[in-house]
Every structure is written in structure tokens, then in C-alpha cells.
């Protein structure tokens, strides 16, 4: 089964969580925010519309106030005179910069006076045919006209809206009726509309109560079709393009201010927000992916290091240790791993040391058994026997020596039968008795049940040699007794001599060394055999087995070997 790496898993999980969260957020709040944006746009349009209306009202009301002022304070104050009228109203044009002219007409249409009666004034003009004049004649109050081209002065053409209404002016002997016209520059109204128009604010236009356009930024473009038929279609909106129109009547209800906007323009805010949202979503995903990648790499890196370290440890000891890195848990894991490696290394080192020592002891034991001095003495004894015509004894000694050497050289494992061990000792004793003569005697007792049990090789002979070397000394008539018997679940071998014994201090030292299983030192002369055999027994059979020694000065020395019962396979 193919397994997914930790890094891949972390990466996929983080990206999936981020993606789901963002999609959910976008689904829940995306539309809501789009609606909010659309509502905000409409609110902004309405606010703009209100502000534009206020300013337009201010201008129109200003014109109305001026009309009233001229009627009340100029035309009725004193007898009318063209010069007086002009002098009275001309300064008003300087103050009200949006005004083009103020004119007084007779009801017949004859221009009676103007704000500027300079040479250029066209007194012959007659507006009787014009709609604004007729409306003023027919109406009872003032009314604003639609957009018109004023040509009251030579060489001057100005687009205006005219506030005109019936008025009364004082003349000598009474009053006369006329039409007072205040011409307001259309550019003043157009500037206000243009100031609030543009882009997402929509287009502001002004129309009269009959729906006729007073001002529109597109009036000229739409008029192109009237100029020439080749411009048909110019400026025409697409039939599929839906328009949003919001209107507000101005003060007095004569004009209507309208804001027009294509629905697509209003939706642009929402679309823009959605585009931004998608952009943010995309970038956030990219960010999440990057962070997921980095985080997963950070988390997985210590595990990969561990993997490499373990691979190195498997190649051989001593293995590398894990570096403490990453999170706390991983540091604890690294600590435990390093401790385990240390323990394994220590055990392996101990095992190697033990095996080295065992090998060394085997070699030492072998060297002991093939002690050149012993061999020399044995051969010397054999020579003496031959020279003394004791051929049979010589043959016997040669045979014993051969058996001794064969048993010593035989490398068939660390254990052999007790019988063989005893034969080895018997052969050794035979050779030594020939050398030492009557200085000692020996007895060997082997329990029949113990003969076929297994014991470590070459453990009795060194002890017997010790007994001969240290027990007899210069004495004569010493007895060396070797016993092998079963004691419970133990196989016991004892080597007892009734020789010189061991001094108490020395005895304690030896006993302690045996208890502690101290290895023989390379420079050690005495106790070497005991320690070596003891250590071998402990290595081969366990620490609970080995040699104990007991002695009494001038009386005896008894070396006891305890072994586990081990039967041959």
C-alpha cells in the first residue's frame, strides 16, 4: 500500500481548509457585500443629487429674488426711465455673476429698458413670437423658460434661461404693465450639473416641466443627427443597456434634475469588489499554499533527518546521534532515541570486551597448558626414565603427555564432558608425580552421575597445578584430592590440598578478587589461574557461578568450583 508522506498530508490539509474557508466566506458574504456596495452607490447618487439640487435651487432662487427686487425696489420706487433702470440693475449683474441681462418689455414685445443700454443693445428685438414671452403674458407669475439663445446685444449670443413674468412699473401719472425678464446664464446651471457628473456619479441633466431638455452634456452630441443624417446612430445608447434614472424637482417645480447611469456602471462597483475578492482569494490561496509548504517542510524535516540518522545507525556502530531540533515532542523523541543508541553501544562494547577477554583467557589457558617449562620438565622426565631403563614408565608418561597435549589443543568449543576434564587432570597428575616423586599424592573422586555432564574446558588442571605449586611448596607427603559431584542443581568440583595453606590477608584478597570477578592483570604473577578460570566460568555460565576458595594456614586449601548442571545435547 502506497503511503502518503507527512509533508504532503499537511500541505493538502492546510490548502483544503483555507480553500473551504474562503469559498464559504465568499459565498456567504460576497453577495451581501455586493448588495451593500450597490446600495452605497445609490445612496451616494442620491446625496449628490441632493447637493446639486441645493445649489441649483440657490441659483434659481437667487434669480427669483432678483426679479422680485427689481419689481419692488426698481420699477415701483420711482417713475420709470430707461437710464434709471439701467443704472439701478446693471450693478446687480456685477454682483450676480450668473446673470446675462435684465430686460423690461412692454406687453407688445417692445424692449423698453435693459441692464446694459450701451450702443450694442438691439432695441429693435421683438420676442413676441417666442414661447417664454407668450408664457409670461399668459401667466400670473414668473416662470423659467427652457434654454434659449439670447441675442439682445450686437455680436453677442448667450445661452440663457429666462425668468419672465408680468410686472408693473411706475410711469408719470400711474402704472404700466410690462414683462420683466431676468436672463440667467445657462452655463451657471450647466457648471453645477457637470460638477456632479462623471464616471460612477452618473450624468446630471436638467429638464423643464414639459420634459424638454434645458441642459444635458450630451445635447450637442445628440443634436448631430439633426445637423446631418450621416450622424444617425451617433451617441445612441445600446437597446440592451438599461438606465437607472433618479430625479428630483427643483424648487418651484419648474425644472427637474435627473441623474442617469447605466445599470452596468452601477454594477461595476459590485463587479470591481468581486474582482478584488477573487484576487484576494487567489493571493490568499497562494499565501496559504506557500505557508503550508513551508510549515510541512518544517514539520517533516526532523523526521527525514531521523530517517537518515537511523539508516546511518543501521550501517554500523557507533551510529550518529539525532540532533535536537524541531518541536518539543520531537526533541523528546530524539533524546529517547539517543539514549537507546547509547545503551546499545554500551552493551555491544561490553559484549565485545567480554568476548575479547574470553578469547584471551582461552589463549592464556592454552598457553598455560602448553607451558614450555612443563613440557620441558615432562620431556626431561621421560628422558630420565628412558635412561634409567624404565621404559614402561616412559611409555606411560609419553602417552599421558600426548593425551594432555591433545586435550589442550582440541578447539571443539568451550564445553566438554566432565570425564574428559578428569582425564586431562589424571594425565597431568601422572606427569607431575613422575617429576615430584613422593612429594605428593593424589586422589580423584568423580560421581558417576556427573561424568557425562558438561563443564568448561581446562578448569581443573590450573587449580591442580596451583595446588602442586603453592600447596606443596617445600613440603613432602602432601595430598591433593579432586572431587566432582552433584549438589542439588549444581555441579561441584573441588581441589583440596593439605599443604601450606594461604595467609589470611592473602586469602581475603583472593576471595574478594574472585567475588568481584576481577580480571587478571597482565603483570600479575600469583592468582592468575584462579582469576582466569573464575572469570571464564562466569562468562560462560553466568555471574552466579564460579570459584570460591577456603584455606587455613599450614592446614589446607580448598578451591571449589560451582557450575550449572549442563547435559550434552
Amino acid at each position, binding site marked *: 500500500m502506497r503511503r502518503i508522506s507527512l509533508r504532503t498530508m499537511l500541505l493538502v490539509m492546510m490548502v483544503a481548509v483555507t480553500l473551504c474557508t474562503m469559498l464559504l466566506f465568499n459565498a456567504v458574504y460576497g453577495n451581501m457585500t455586493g448588495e451593500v456596495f450597490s446600495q452605497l452607490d445609490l445612496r451616494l447618487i442620491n446625496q449628490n443629487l441632493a447637493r446639486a439640487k441645493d445649489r441649483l435651487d440657490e441659483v434659481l432662487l437667487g434669480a427669483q429674488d432678483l426679479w422680485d427686487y427689481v419689481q419692488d425696489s426698481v420699477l415701483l420706487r420711482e417713475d420709470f426711465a430707461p437710464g434709471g433702470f439701467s443704472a439701478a440693475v446693471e450693478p446687480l449683474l456685477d454682483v450676480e455673476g450668473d446673470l446675462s441681462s435684465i430686460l423690461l418689455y412692454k406687453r407688445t414685445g417692445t424692449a423698453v429698458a435693459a441692464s446694459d443700454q450701451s450702443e450694442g443693445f438691439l432695441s429693435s428685438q421683438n420676442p413676441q413670437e417666442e414661447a417664454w414671452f407668450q408664457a409670461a403674458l399668459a401667466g400670473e407669475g414668473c416662470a423659467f423658460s427652457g434654454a434659449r*439663445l439670447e441675442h439682445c446685444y450686437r455680436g453677442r449670443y448667450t445661452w440663457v434661461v429666462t425668468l419672465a413674468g408680468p410686472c408693473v412699473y411706475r410711469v408719470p401719472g400711474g402704472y404700466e404693465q410690462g414683462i420683466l425678464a431676468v436672463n440667467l446664464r445657462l452655463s451657471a446651471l450647466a457648471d453645477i450639473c457637470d460638477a456632479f457628473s462623471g464616471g460612477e456619479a452618473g450624468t446630471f441633466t436638467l429638464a423643464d416641466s414639459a420634459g424638454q431638455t434645458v441642459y444635458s452634456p450630451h445635447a450637442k452630441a445628440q443634436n448631430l443627427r439633426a445637423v446631418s443624417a450621416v450622424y444617425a446612430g451617433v451617441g445612441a445608447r445600446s437597446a440592451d443597456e438599461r438606465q437607472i434614472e433618479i430625479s428630483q424637482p427643483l424648487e418651484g417645480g419648474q425644472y427637474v434634475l435627473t441623474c442617469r447611469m447605466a445599470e452596468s456602471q452601477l454594477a461595476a462597483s459590485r463587479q470591481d469588489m468581486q*474582482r478584488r475578492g477573487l484576487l484576494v482569494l487567489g493571493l490568499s490561496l497562494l499565501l496559504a499554499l506557500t505557508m503550508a509548504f513551508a510549515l510541512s517542510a518544517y514539520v517533516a524535516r526532523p523526521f527525514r533527518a531521523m530517517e537518515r540518522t537511523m539508516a546511518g545507525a543501521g550501517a554500523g556502530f557507533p551510529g550518529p546521534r539525532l540532533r535536537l531540533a524541531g518541536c518539543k515532542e520531537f526533541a523528546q523523541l530524539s533524546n529517547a532515541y539517543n539514549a537507546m543508541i547509547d545503551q546499545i553501544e554500551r552493551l555491544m562494547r561490553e559484549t565485545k570486551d567480554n568476548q575479547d577477554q574470553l578469547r584471551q583467557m582461552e589463549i592464556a589457558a592454552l598457553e598455560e597448558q602448553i607451558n614450555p617449562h612443563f613440557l620441558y620438565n615432562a620431556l626431561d622426565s621421560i628422558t630420565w626414565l628412558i635412561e634409567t631403563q624404565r621404559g614402561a614408565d616412559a611409555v606411560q608418561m609419553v602417552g599421558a603427555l600426548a593425551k594432555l597435549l591433545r586435550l589442550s589443543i582440541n578447539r571443539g568449543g568451550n564445553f566438554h564432558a566432565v570425564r574428559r576434564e578428569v582425564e586431562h587432570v589424571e594425565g597431568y597428575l601422572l606427569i607431575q608425580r613422575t617429576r615430584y616423586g613422593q612429594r605428593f599424592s593424589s586422589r580423584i573422586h568423580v560421581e558417576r552421575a556427573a561424568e557425562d555432564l558438561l563443564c568448561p574446558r581446562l578448569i581443573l588442571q590450573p587449580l591442580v597445578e596451583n595446588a602442586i605449586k603453592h600447596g606443596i611448596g617445600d613440603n613432602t607427603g602432601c595430598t591433593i584430592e579432586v572431587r566432582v559431584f552433584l549438589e542439588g542443581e549444581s555441579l561441584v568440583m573441588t581441589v583440596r590440598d593439605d599443604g601450606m595453606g594461604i595467609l589470611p590477608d592473602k586469602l581475603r584478597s583472593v576471595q574478594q578478587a574472585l567475588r568481584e570477578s576481577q580480571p587478571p592483570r597482565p603483570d600479575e604473577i600469583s592468582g592468575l589461574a584462579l582469576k582466569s578460570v573464575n572469570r571464564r566460568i562466569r562468562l560462560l555460565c553466568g555471574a552466579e557461578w564460579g570459584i570460591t576458595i577456603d584455606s587455613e594456614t599450614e592446614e589446607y586449601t580448598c578451591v571449589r568450583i560451582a557450575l550449572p548442571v549442563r547435559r550434552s545435547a
Partner: protein
Amino acid sequence: MRAHRLARPALGLTLALLLLLSLPGCAAGAGAQRLVLLAQDDEGFYWENLLSGARLAAQDAGWEIEVRLLDAESDLAGQLPAAGEADLAAVALDGAQGEAALRSEVPLVALGCEIEGASGGIAGEETTIGRRTGQLIAQKIGLQRRFLLLTSAESYAQDDWEVALRGELGNQGSLVAERLTVDSEEAAFAYCLELLARDSRIEGIVCRTQAATRGALRAVRALGLQTPIVGADFDDGIALGLRDGLVRFTVVRSAYAYGYAGVEAALRRAAGGTSDLPAKVDAVYVDIYNMYDEDLLLYLYDLE
């Protein structure tokens, strides 16, 4: 290991991008398309109408428009590469100057002129305008007359309008007796004053530009003459001249149409749509009888 090393630079790059895109207007501004308009001038009836129309058409289409004035005729080649940075480029020159082969890296629209290699545009049908002007001269001034022609460049002698006009005048037994190049109203006034005072055989003045018309009108009035004038474009002074009868008619090129309709058609095509607008259109000929026509009021009289 290699992928982990890449994670840090990628993270830094992502954070930098987020920071940039959060700057005000950055994301919003990235969406608006840009039109660069190279114009020869921005004063006078013709240029004001052309630029006004172009701006409105761009605004209606949601495009940003940048108008750059050309310092000289030779400046066009130098400015065109800068216009190449926009999404669309438009060039508005005095007709005769436009006949130059130009290489542009963006779609180029010619407004009121002819540019070889332009992908679209609108201009006056100069041959028709010249011929019609000649016909109206015969109608309103008369046959077999000697005319002074006021133009704005020597090179215009070979353009379609002047060639057609001369041809039509020739058919009427009339001729261009004098031809002067003037670049301002004052220059036109000075030249006309001097020439008319010196040569009484000039029976009419044909003006190529608005400035020449105003200058000629002042000169004729100053001398107290009744020399008829054929004007170009329109303003209050020319309107007064029409009323006085000094200006028999004036040729009003469709500058607003060049600007608005020309740009509108180009932007419509840029958006994948189509336009039926012809590449060449006639002028409007205004005299005392139609100068107050309701259909022409908006066209002729600007909102101050």
C-alpha cells in the same frame, strides 16, 4: 530541501504583491483603458469643439483620455511612440498635414485628417467641401470674380479642398488672384488691410480658418468696404458678419462630430462592436438664413 528553500522567497513575493495591491486605487485603476489624443491646437471653434467631443465620447465609454498638444508638425513623429503606451491613440491635425505615413504600435484613429496607416477615423470630404464652397460662392457672391485666398500653410495649395475650390472657381470664370498664408487674426488683419487698400480689384475674400475670417472682417470694416467674405468656422464675430452681410456664408467643418463621433466609433470598434459612420463627411454651410435654425443652434453657439 530545494523546495523548502524556495518557500521563503515565494512567501516574500506573495506578501509584497498583497501590499502593492492593497494600495489605494491600484487595483481599481488597473481596469481603466486609456486613449491618448495628439492635437495640433486647443483654441478656436474647431479645436475646442473637436476636443470637447472627444472627451465626452471617451467619458461615456469609461475610458481615460489624455490630450497632448503638438508643438510643431514635426512633433507628431516624436510624440507617437509615447502614445504607443496607451490602449488607443488618436491624432487630430489640420487636414493637409495629416497625409503622412506613420508607424504606430497601437491602433491609431485620425480625427479631422487623413493619416496613412490609421485604423479608423473621420475627416471632412475636402473635395466635396471645396466644390460646394465654390458653388455657394457663385450663388452668393457671383461669377467671374477675383478672390483673395487666406490660408494657413503653403502646403495647402495642393490639398483636395483648395484644388476643388480653384477648379470650381475656374468653372465660374473666377480665380484666386492672391493667396496669402496667415497664422493669426492679427496677421490676417494686417495683410488684408494692406492688400485691400492697395488693390481694389479684390472682389472677395475666401478664408480657410476662423482667425483669417476674423482678421479679414476687421480689415474690411476698418476700410469701410463691402468686400464679401467667405468664412470658416463660427463665433459671435462671424455671426455678426453674417448679420451685416459682410460674411456671405461660412464653412463650418464638423469638428464636434470629428471628436465625438470619431472617438465613439473607434471605442465601439475597440470593444468589438461595429459603426456605420462614414469615414468622410460634408461640412455645414451657414448663412444668414439658417444661422438661427433650431437644429444648428447647439452646433454653432457654444455654451459659455
